[in-house]
C-alpha cells in the first residue's frame, strides 16, 4: 500500500477503534475520497447517483457505486473493493440496500451522514435501525482527522500550492502594461498555465479567474460567468486579481495573487497592498498551535483595526484546504477549533480600499515552531509588476 493510503487508513482505523465501532459508513463524497481514494468527477453534480463507503476495522474499504461509475472507481482507490448496483431499481435505494448487505453483522456503526442530504441521512439511519445496530455520529471525527494532515498529504499540498503559484506567476510573465488583456483572456490563461505544469484536468472544481480594473469592487465579478469573466479590458495601471484552484493527487490548492499593469503602483494601490501584506504578517504571527481559531480571528481583527486596515466586516480570515478546496476549521469569530500541528490553512486576505476590494491568498503549513508559507514561487511582499512596454 502506498504511503498516503497507509497514513489515511491508519487514521480511519483510529476512529473506528476510538469509537469502538464494528464499521464506519461514509456518505460524503469528500470524506469518501479522503478515506478510500475513490473520486468521481461529477459525483456532486449528479446527485441521484450515490456513492457509499463502508470500512471495518483493519479491513480494506468497500465502496458502493452505481454501475456507470464502477470502472472509474476501480482506477484510483486505496485497495478498496468496488461493488456496483445496477440500473434495475431506484439508484439511491439500490445503493442503500447494497450498503445494508455489507454491514449486516455490525452492532455498532459510525456514520458521517450528518453532512449528507437529509434524504440520505434518513435512509442510513433507518438502515442502521433496521439492522438493530447502534448509531454513532462520526462527522466530527472525520473532520478532525482531515484537518491535521499526514506527511504525504503535506507533500502533495506543498507541491500543488507551489505549482499553482508558479502557474499564476507564469501567466503574469506575459503581461505587458500597454497591451490590453480582457478578463476572459486572463482567466483562460491562468488555467492553461496551470495545466502546463502537470496539474490534473478538472472540470467543475478547478476555478481560474481574473478580475481586472474596477471590476475588483465585486469579489465574484462577472456573474454568472464567474470562471470565464467577460470582455472588459485592462488599462495601464489596472490591478488584476488572479484566482486559481488546482488539483493534483487528489489534493487542492486555492490561491489568489495580484498583478499591476504597470511597473509601479498608484498611491491607492500601494496603501491597499501594504495593508494586505501587514494582514498576512499579523495572521502568520497569530497562528500558534494550541490557540483557538476564534482567538486568532479576534486577535488579528483587533490589531488590524489599530493599524487602520479595513478588513471586510465579518469576513473569515482563512480556511483549511486538503481533499476539498475549502474545508474547516475556519479562522472566524465562531470557530472554537484548537489549532494543531500540521494543519494547512489558506489565509484569505481581503481588504476594502475606497470602492475596491483587494485580495491575496497565501497557503501556510502550521507547525509547533511557527508557520511556513508554502505557495511562494516569488516573494509576495510586492505584487507582480508588468513591464510597461517592450
Amino acid at each position, binding site marked *: 500500500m502506498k504511503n498516503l493510503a497507509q497514513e489515511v487508513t491508519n487514521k480511519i482505523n483510529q476512529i473506528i477503534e476510538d469509537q469502538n465501532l464494528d464499521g464506519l459508513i461514509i456518505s460524503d463524497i469528500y470524506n469518501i475520497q479522503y478515506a478510500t481514494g475513490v473520486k468521481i468527477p461529477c459525483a456532486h453534480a449528479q446527485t441521484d447517483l450515490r456513492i457509499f463507503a463502508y470500512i471495518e476495522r483493519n479491513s480494506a474499504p468497500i465502496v458502493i457505486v452505481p454501475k456507470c461509475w464502477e470502472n472509474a472507481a476501480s482506477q484510483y482507490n486505496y485497495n478498496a473493493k468496488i461493488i456496483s448496483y445496477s440500473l434495475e431499481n431506484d439508484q439511491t435505494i439500490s445503493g442503500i440496500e447494497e450498503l445494508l448487505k455489507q454491514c449486516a453483522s455490525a452492532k455498532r456503526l459510525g456514520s458521517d451522514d450528518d453532512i449528507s442530504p*437529509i434524504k440520505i441521512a434518513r435512509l442510513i439511519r433507518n438502515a442502521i435501525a433496521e439492522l438493530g445496530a447502534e448509531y454513532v455520529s462520526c462527522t466530527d471525527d472525520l473532520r478532525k482527522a482531515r484537518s491535521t494532515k499526514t506527511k504525504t498529504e503535506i507533500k502533495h499540498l506543498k507541491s500543488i500550492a507551489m505549482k499553482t503559484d508558479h502557474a499564476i506567476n507564469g501567466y503574469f510573465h506575459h503581461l505587458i502594461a500597454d497591451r490590453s488583456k480582457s478578463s476572459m483572456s486572463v482567466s483562460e490563461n491562468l488555467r492553461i498555465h496551470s495545466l502546463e505544469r502537470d496539474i490534473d484536468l478538472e472540470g467543475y472544481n478547478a476555478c481560474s479567474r481574473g478580475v481586472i480594473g474596477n471590476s475588483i469592487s465585486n469579489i465574484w465579478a462577472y456573474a454568472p460567468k464567474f470562471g470565464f469573466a467577460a470582455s472588459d479590458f485592462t488599462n495601464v495601471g489596472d490591478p488584476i486579481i488572479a484566482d486559481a484552484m488546482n488539483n493534483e493527487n487528489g489534493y487542492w490548492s486555492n490561491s489568489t495573487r495580484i498583478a499591476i499593469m504597470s511597473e509601479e503602483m498608484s498611491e491607492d494601490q500601494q496603501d491597499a497592498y501594504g495593508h494586505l501584506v501587514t494582514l498576512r504578517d499579523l495572521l502568520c504571527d497569530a497562528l500558534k498551535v494550541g490557540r483557538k481559531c476564534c482567538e486568532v480571528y479576534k486577535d488579528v481583527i483587533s490589531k488590524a483595526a489599530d493599524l487602520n486596515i479595513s478588513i471586510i466586516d465579518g469576513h473569515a480570515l482563512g480556511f483549511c484546504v486538503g481533499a476539498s478546496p475549502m474545508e474547516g476549521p475556519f479562522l472566524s469569530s465562531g470557530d472554537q477549533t484548537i489549532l494543531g500541528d500540521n494543519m494547512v490553512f489558506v489565509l484569505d486576505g481581503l481588504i476594502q480600499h475606497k470602492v475596491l476590494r483587494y485580495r491575496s491568498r497565501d497557503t501556510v503549513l502550521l507547525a509547533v515552531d511557527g508557520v511556513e508559507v508554502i505557495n511562494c514561487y516569488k516573494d509576495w511582499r510586492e505584487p507582480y509588476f508588468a513591464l510597461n512596454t517592450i
Partner: protein
Amino acid sequence: MSTMNDISLSTNEKNILNEKIEKKLSNEGYDGILVFGSSNLSYLSCGIIFPYMDQKLVQPVALYICFKTGKRLIACTNDLADIPLQLNWDGDVVIYELNQHSPESSIAASLKNHVTGKVAIDENYMSAAQLRELETSIDGLISLSGDQAFADLKMIKTEAEIRLLEISCRMGDRGFVSALNHSEGAALDTLSYPLWEYAERFRVHVGEYGGSGVGNMVVAQGDDCKDLYARCEPRAVLNEQGFVRLEYSLHNSGYWITGSRTVYLGESNQQAEIAWSNNQTLKNIALKKLRTGVKANEVYSAVLKASEESNIPFWQGADLGHGVGTSERELPYLAPYDDTELKAGMVIALGIYTYGPKEELICNKDVYLITDGEPKLLNWYKNWEDLYVLYGTSARHG
C-alpha cells in the same frame, strides 16, 4: 438568430416562471420555500446563480421565499453578497458571518427572524446538520419535503427555459467544434496534442461563445475509451488511432446540458464506420419512442429489444438519457427504474453507449425537446450522424 443571443431570462420571462412556481407550491399547501441546493436556488429564484456551491467552495447559501407575505430573501456570506445585485435580484440579501460554531449554525442564526410558516425544503440537498441547526434557531419551524414538487415543476420547461437550454446546446457544439478545429491541425503531428488541451479548448471556447460555466470534462482515448470516465494523465497526448470521446457538461445562465461526442483519430476504416452506424441505429430507435405518453423506461426497453433483435450490443451500465435543466441531470431518466410518463415541454439529453471494434464506448449525445409530435433537436448546430474523423498535421496550429 437573434434569440440565440438572449442568454438569460428577461424580466417578463422571470415573472412567468415565478408565477408557475408560486401557483403550484401554494396549491400544494406550502407557505413558502427554504432551499440550499444550487439547482433549486437557481430555479426557484428564477436566475440567481452562485459559484461552486455544490463543490463547497463557498459557504452555504439559502433562498427563502414566503408566498403569503411576498418576502424574498437570500442569505449568504459577505464575499457572495454582490452576486444577487449583479443579477438583478429583486429581494433582500441577508449577510451572515461565521460567528457560530459551524457554517450551518451561522446561516441558521441569520435566518432566525425571517422564516415563518410551513416551508418546503430540499431534502435532496440540505444536510441533516443544516436542518437540525435551523430547527434549533427558528421557533416553530415546520419543514416538509418539497423535492417532488420541485422535480415536477422543473421537468416541464417554460418557453424561455427551453431557449436557454437550446443556447447551451449551441455553445456546447461550438465549443466542441472549436476543440476539433484546434486539434486537427496537430493531432497526428510529431509535436502531438495534449489530451488536456483538447478538453481545455472545449472549455475555453464555451466561454468565448458566451457560456457561463463548464462542469464535467473527461477525455478518453485508446483503452481508456472502454470506460465512461478515465483520469487524463497530465502528459497524455492524442496518439492512439481510434475513437476519442469527450464527456462534458456546461451551463448558460444556470441551465445545464450534458454532452458526449466521439470522433475517430486518424483515417477511419470500415469497422469503425459500422460501429458508428450501429450507434446511430439504436439512437434512432430511442428517438422514435421519445413521444408524449410513453414512459421513460419504455424507451429503454425498446432499445434493449432492438439491440437483441439486431445484434447491436450497448453498454447497460448507464441510462440512455435524462432530463436537463438547472442541474445537469434530473428527471426523467431513460432507465429501467423510471416510469415517468414523457410530456411535452420536457428536455432530455439522449445518448447510447455502443461498442467500437476494440470494445471502446462510443456515444453521440444530443438534447431533445419532447413535443406533441416528433422530438425537436436542440443540438442543431452541427449534424453528427456521420463519423467525424480527426485528421491532420502541421508544424503547429495555434
